[in-house]
């Protein structure tokens, strides 16, 4: 390096001296000093070029040149701050949007789950005969068989979803989020407690239980007291003693905060009947075992099980699914669709910047020509322009990272309760992605203008006046870019338009009841001793008469509150919850086990129908006369009648119900006494399905397995006499007081209006609509900037021509027409291409649409017209400016 510096440092002297000697010789041969000097220079050639070539010899110049180009590029960008700001912000917007969506994709699909060797974790699902593609939870006891019979799994653990349970003994009555797991579950994930221990092999929920609490719960309820072990309180009435604390952030698998874990012992006699399927088995493959090997093994074991337990396992298969795929596989499609959408936004941004850059290179053609004639090579010019573009892209990338932070916050705010929200961050892979995208943008927007600027016929640019007439091919390219932009924006706008249309359709759906002025709140009785008793030797539980008393008194007292029209109680309000079961019709031959008629159902109190205003079609509602001692009756939905009693009068028919997943019929038949309107129990977008309502006060005293919880839990619905505003604090307080009067340990939660429940139920559609809306707005904004820029350039380029036209007597309108025609031609071409693209691409969101087809002509037309209107406005402003051109100024210009 020092040698190089020395060599180059003396070069100036060498050259000067060389020229001096030559000059002197020339003088000696009789030239005047001036002549002699010029002759010497001529003979020497271009000193700058010579110096550059010598520098080339000594290498390192690429870095030197790069730094030089960087400095030069920076100066160029600073010299035109308007251009720089618009370009950087457009690109940053596109890059930020892409990185935001990528950060979500990374968190859900690519980043390994936070467990030991997460790639070896699989979920084991059962498949019922005849439904090989439906994943069902296998019986709990089966995990014991698998553990004994296989040699592909290291360990197998079971886990429930989160459930909300009332807790007492922790101050005020409150709800906690619990998860039931088998002792092996923590080992399967390879997570150890930070305090105490996890469950022992035989520990299980019974009269009393041990629990493991989360770090969050430890902090919020015990202020991280290390003496927390051994403390006890009641969960759903069961005395629970803390034996361990899990590390911070441990919340399998959905990122929802879990307060504590309760033990389940799959070996307990309770599950020996193999009829309870409510836990998800998660297994760890042995090291080196592939998914295929494990699946092969799990194709064999079920056959053995079918022989051993033909009643429950005949024809039942098993399917292994990698845990990460099980948890987030379904988000893949929508997320990649969104990535495609933001990809379009970025493309538009790139097109925009390419256009801006091109206008700039046009303006700088003389500079390039001059530099080329001074000996700068083509490669050098391209390199210098690319460095300038790269600088722009890197600035945009840096801003894009900032925007990604904001974007993630917006995304999570729009998607309430998004799974693994805290995993979505700007991390290494996201930054790498951003960098890659930024580099890609340089190639997209920087290369073409750079090549063009350095094209060989530069010398023409040196000639005066050339600029004015050489719009030709450059104009075509620029116009092509605008057409692309409009087309891409069109696609996103159509997507957003279809989603808006979907929302409008959903909001217009008749839910089958009147959600206005109805307040809903959850009142869940605990499964503790006060209300429930275990039946020894089996999975049956009995509820006490106290349950009926509670419900009756609650309804009576709430209905009597001032401002209350009526009150009802239901296992779950529409769109939130319903039970599933099957039935047989009394007096008809029993259906084959594989083809039992299926129905969804809820328990409802007599006041429920009036409160919800569910229309009565035929017969009567369940009412107060229907009690334990009178014949048991049900109301069925119209869809139920259509499916199971077509062209018959269902009134008077009786059925025997069977709780979903269990093989036991109810003892008493239930008689159909009424037909009510279809309710959108499974969401506004869903079709009407067979549905029936049983009475809260006509239920078997002994219920099987988890069935008891459905009887104890429910939503209180209250119709107010006046317009319901917000959450009606006085009414809520009064209702809470009534509940506390009946059971002081009972929390009331989830207070909301039914209108809000309906709104929440279409949250996924709204989320997609909002995201596509945001992306489409960005695309539109960028496209408008693009059109405006090109028309402005067109006007600036034609100032001379417009001046002549005006001088020759053209009217304002003529000038306007000239320019507006260009704007309209470009945008209508863009819209036409966009229509075709949208037609092909909107099929991808067909699954997210409701009430509107991907090729909905109204949406397409509306978007096309609005896009044209916006494009017209964007070209009108520069066009209007052109009409104010003073012909004298325009003609004098250059």
């Amino acid at each position: 390096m020092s040698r190089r510096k020395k060599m180059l440092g003396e070069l100036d002297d060498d050259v000067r001296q060389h020229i001096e000697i030559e000059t002197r010789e020339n003088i000696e041969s009789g030239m005047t000093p001036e002549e002699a000097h010029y002759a010497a220079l001529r003979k020497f050639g271009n000193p700058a070029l010579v110096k550059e070539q010598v520098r080339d010899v000594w290498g390192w110049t690429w870095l030197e040149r790069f730094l030089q180009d960087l400095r030069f590029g920076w100066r160029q960008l600073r010299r035109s701050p308007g251009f720089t700001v618009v370009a950087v912000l457009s690109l940053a917007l596109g890059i930020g949007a892409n990185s935001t969506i990528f950060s979500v994709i990374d968190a859900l699909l690519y980043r390994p789950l936070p467990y030991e060797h997460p790639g070896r974790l699989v979920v084991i699902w059962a498949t019922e005969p005849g439904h090989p593609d439906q994943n069902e939870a296998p019986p709990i006891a089966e995990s014991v068989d698998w553990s004994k019979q296989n040699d592909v799994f290291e360990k197998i653990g079971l886990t429930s979803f989160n459930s909300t349970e009332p807790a007492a003994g922790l101050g005020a009555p409150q709800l906690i989020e619990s998860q039931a797991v088998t002792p092996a579950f923590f080992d399967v994930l390879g997570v150890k407690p930070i305090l105490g221990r996890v469950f022992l092999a035989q520990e299980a929920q019974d009269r009393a239980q041990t629990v493991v609490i989360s770090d969050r719960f430890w902090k919020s309820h015990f202020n991280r007291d290390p003496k927390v072990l051994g403390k006890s309180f009641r969960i759903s009435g069961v005395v629970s003693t803390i034996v361990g604390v899990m590390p911070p952030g441990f919340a399998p698998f959905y990122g929802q905060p879990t307060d504590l874990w309760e033990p389940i012992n799959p070996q307990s006699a309770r599950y020996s009947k193999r009829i309870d399927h409510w836990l998800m088995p998660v297994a760890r493959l042995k090291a080196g075992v592939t998914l295929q090997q494990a699946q092969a093994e799990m194709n064999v074991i079920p056959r053995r099980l079918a022989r051993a337990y033909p009643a429950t396992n005949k024809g039942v298969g098993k399917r292994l699914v990698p845990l990460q795929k099980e948890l987030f596989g379904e988000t893949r499609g929508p997320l990649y669709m969104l990535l495609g959408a933001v990809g379009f936004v970025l493309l538009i941004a790139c097109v925009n910047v390419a256009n801006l850059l091109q206008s700039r290179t046009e303006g700088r053609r003389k500079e390039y020509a001059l530099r080329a004639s001074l000996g700068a090579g083509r490669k050098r010019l391209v390199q210098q322009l690319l460095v300038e573009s790269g600088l722009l892209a890197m600035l945009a990338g840096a801003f894009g990272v900032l925007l990604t932070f904001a974007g993630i916050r917006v995304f999570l705010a729009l998607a309430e309760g998004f799974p693994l929200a805290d995993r979505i961050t700007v991390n290494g892979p996201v930054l790498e992605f951003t960098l890659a995208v930024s580099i890609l943008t340089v190639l997209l927007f920087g290369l073409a203008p750079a090549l063009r600027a350095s094209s060989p016929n530069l010398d023409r640019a040196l000639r005066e006046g050339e600029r004015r007439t050489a719009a030709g091919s450059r104009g075509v390219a620029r116009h092509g870019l605008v057409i692309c932009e409009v087309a891409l924006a069109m696609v996103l706008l159509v997507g957003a338009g279809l989603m808006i249309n979907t929302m409008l359709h959903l909001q217009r759906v008749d839910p089958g009841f009147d959600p206005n002025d109805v307040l809903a709140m959850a009142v869940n009785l605990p499964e503790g001793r006060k209300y429930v008793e275990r039946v020894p030797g089996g999975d049956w539980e009995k509820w006490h008469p106290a349950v009926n008393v509670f419900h009756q008194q609650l309804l009576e007292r709430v209905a009597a509150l001032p401002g209350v029209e009526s009150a009802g109680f239901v296992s779950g309000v529409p769109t939130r919850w319903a039970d599933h079961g099957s039935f047989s019709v009394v007096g008809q031959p029993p259906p084959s086990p594989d083809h039992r008629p299926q129905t969804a159902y809820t328990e409802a109190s007599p006041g429920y129908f009036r409160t919800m205003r569910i229309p009565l079609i035929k017969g009567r509602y369940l009412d107060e006369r229907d009690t334990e001692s009178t014949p048991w009756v049900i109301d069925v939905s119209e869809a139920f009648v259509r499916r199971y009693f077509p062209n018959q009068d269902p009134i008077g028919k009786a059925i025997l119900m069977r709780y979903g997943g269990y093989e036991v019929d109810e003892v008493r038949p239930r008689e159909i006494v009424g037909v009510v309107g279809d309710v959108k129990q499974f969401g506004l977008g869903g079709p009407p399905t067979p549905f029936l309502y049983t009475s809260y006060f006509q239920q078997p005293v002994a219920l099987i397995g988890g069935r008891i919880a459905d009887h104890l839990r429910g939503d209180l619905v209250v119709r107010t006499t006046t317009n319901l505003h917000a959450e009606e604090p006085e009414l809520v307080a009064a209702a809470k007081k009534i509940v506390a009067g009946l059971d002081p340990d009972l929390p009331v939660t989830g207070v909301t209006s039914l209108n809000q429940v309906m709104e929440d139920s279409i949250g996924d559609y709204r989320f997609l609509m909002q995201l596509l809306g945001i992306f489409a707005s960005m695309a539109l904004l960028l496209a408008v900037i693009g059109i405006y820029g090109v028309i402005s350039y067109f006007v600036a380029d034609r100032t001379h021509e417009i001046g002549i036209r005006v001088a020759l007597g053209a009217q304002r309108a003529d000038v306007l027409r000239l320019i507006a025609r260009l704007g309209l031609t470009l945008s209508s071409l863009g819209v036409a291409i966009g229509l075709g693209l949208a037609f092909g691409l909107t099929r991808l969101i067909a699954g997210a649409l409701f009430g509107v087809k991907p090729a909905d002509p109204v949406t397409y037309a509306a978007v096309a017209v609005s896009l044209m209107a916006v494009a017209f406005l964007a070209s009108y402003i520069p066009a209007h400016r052109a009409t104010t051109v003073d012909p004298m100024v325009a003609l004098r210009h250059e």
Partner: protein
Amino acid sequence: MLQGTLDLLILRTLLWGPTHGHAIAKTIERNSAAVLQVEQGSLYPALHRLIKRGLISFETGTSENNRRAKYYRLTPKGRRRLHVETTKWDKLAGAIARILRPAEEKVD
């Protein structure tokens, strides 16, 4: 003009002893009887290339009119290279000559 040719001419010039840049240029001009017209400036990249490859070296001396100037000299490596290249060149020139001469004779 071919780059290698200029390098060869420089080495050849320095065979007579160390000299400075301008003198090298003049010698080449004179010896090639102005057939090989070179922009004098292109001499310098060639000189630096040869220095980098170790074929010539330089020292700072005083020129005819008492100015400091670089004197370039052939290194042993350069001398060997000149020998090799000259041989090659002679062979090539001979070959070309043999090819061209019969044709010339025919035309004559």
